[in-house]
């Protein structure tokens, strides 16, 4: 398996990939990316966190696509192919997380409320292939 696009954001586990968040041990607030210094809840002064994998599926809150190639530090495929982007609401964590949608799924295939699950997909890096998380619609959900 290739190295992750950014270290520490998700587990590189083909069978059960997950975004790596953290959870405040006092108030229960989840964080993604991980928070390990201070809780951002204004009513909580905890500095203790547990690293936790986030829910691996959620519902599609909104979506769009990128028709123009983003500037660096994005590393695009040659030639550039537009890709869809999903904002997925995780029930347990009560948070919305962004990510690209798997190749081959465009905005016409998406609708708010769909169930989406987290998968891994290879993407180009500056010095060879990397792997990242993507959202994939769950068929028949």
């Amino acid at each position, binding site marked *: 398996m290739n190295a992750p*696009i950014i270290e520490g954001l998700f587990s590189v586990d083909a069978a059960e990939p997950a975004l790596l968040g953290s959870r405040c041990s006092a108030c229960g607030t989840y964080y993604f990316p991980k928070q390990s210094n201070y809780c951002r*809840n204004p009513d909580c002064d905890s500095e203790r966190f547990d690293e936790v994998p986030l829910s691996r599926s959620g519902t599609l809150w909104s979506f769009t696509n*990128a028709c123009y190639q983003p500037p660096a530090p994005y590393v695009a495929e040659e030639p550039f192919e537009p890709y869809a982007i999903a904002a997925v609401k995780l029930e347990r964590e009560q948070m*919305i997380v962004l990510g690209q949608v798997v190749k081959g799924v465009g905005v016409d295939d998406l609708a708010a409320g769909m169930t989406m699950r987290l998968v891994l997909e290879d993407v180009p890096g500056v010095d060879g292939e990397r792997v990242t998380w993507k959202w994939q619609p769950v068929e028949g959900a």
Partner: protein
Amino acid sequence: MSNNEIAILGVGMHPWGKWGKNFVEYGVAAARSALQDAGVPWRDVRFVSGGGTVRCGYPGYVAGATFAQALGWQGAEVNTSYAACASGSQALAAARAKILSGACDVALVVGADTTPKGFLKPADGERPDDPDWVRFRLGITNPTYFALYARRRMEVYGDTPADFAAVKVKNAAHGFTNPNARYKKKFSAEDVAASAMVADPLRLMDICATSDGGAAMIVSSLDYARKIGKGDAPRIAAISTVTPTFASELVEMPDIATDSAVAAEARPFRAALPAKAYEEAGIGPEDISLAEVYDLSTALELDWIEDLQLCARGEAAALTRADETSVGGRIPINASGGLACFGEAVPAQALAQVCELTWQLRGQAGERQVAGAKVGITANQGLFGHGSSVIVKA
């Protein structure tokens, strides 16, 4: 609440566009124009408050002093405010605080910028600790966020791309005769629909461009205004620059996730900005004659209309379709032409909104004049929980 008010004695701009000049030239041109409009001698200005410019190297970080030097050092106190799209409002808030505390009578507030072509993007280098770098590495640019909000309107309220295009058509018609606008061209819904898709459902003409530009104003105590015979000048009745309240409901640029709402209720941010301004001014949305809002995208203008409580949630598209947000309608929005016609010049934009309200309340807005304008409100929002809303009264 009148003991919180200050007077706007003069306003000025450098026209928006891609002029290839240094940002200092734009700011000085705007400042000189505001001084002339106010009829105030430069040496009477005792506080210079600049909106911070960040893409122009070292002088940009000390914008207040840069402008003060260019206008001629005369010993005034100086300040620079950096707050992304709210930089101009924070600079204005600093000037108001000085004036209301009695530390000075008259102040210059100024912001100016130059912008690079294409996408706004983060600084170079491998910086995974910077959320702005992270989201660009993942392929999530500014239009992504605007499009997620636009799509959400379609899913929740049934808005259509034609509703979004109507905002562009209206704002282009408003800005057509504005001498300070960058784009002075009328567009049709067909023109918008024919422009390239950038981030579905937003097309090129749904998204604002970047620009060079400058805006400035001379503000003073009410006593000073009366002393120079300008007791009836428009007044700043409120400046709101509140942060979001945890847990923030929407995924905000540049983050890739919202706050978790497990321990605290999810709350909207945009609506909090005008709510604080209304409270401070002691007025409500029913008192507003016109609004200048941050149309980074056409769809975002519709969100703002609802966040300003100028109509119920989900009804902004219908209001726009009925021409009620055009000059001549019930509640004109972006009579200046908005960002659709100006483009973004970040530290100047929040001030440009106040300049437009000033011209409107004085009845000097020419063909885009809103008849009988008495009270105006601005709203904008940028990176990292910055945003502002300013209320100006005739």
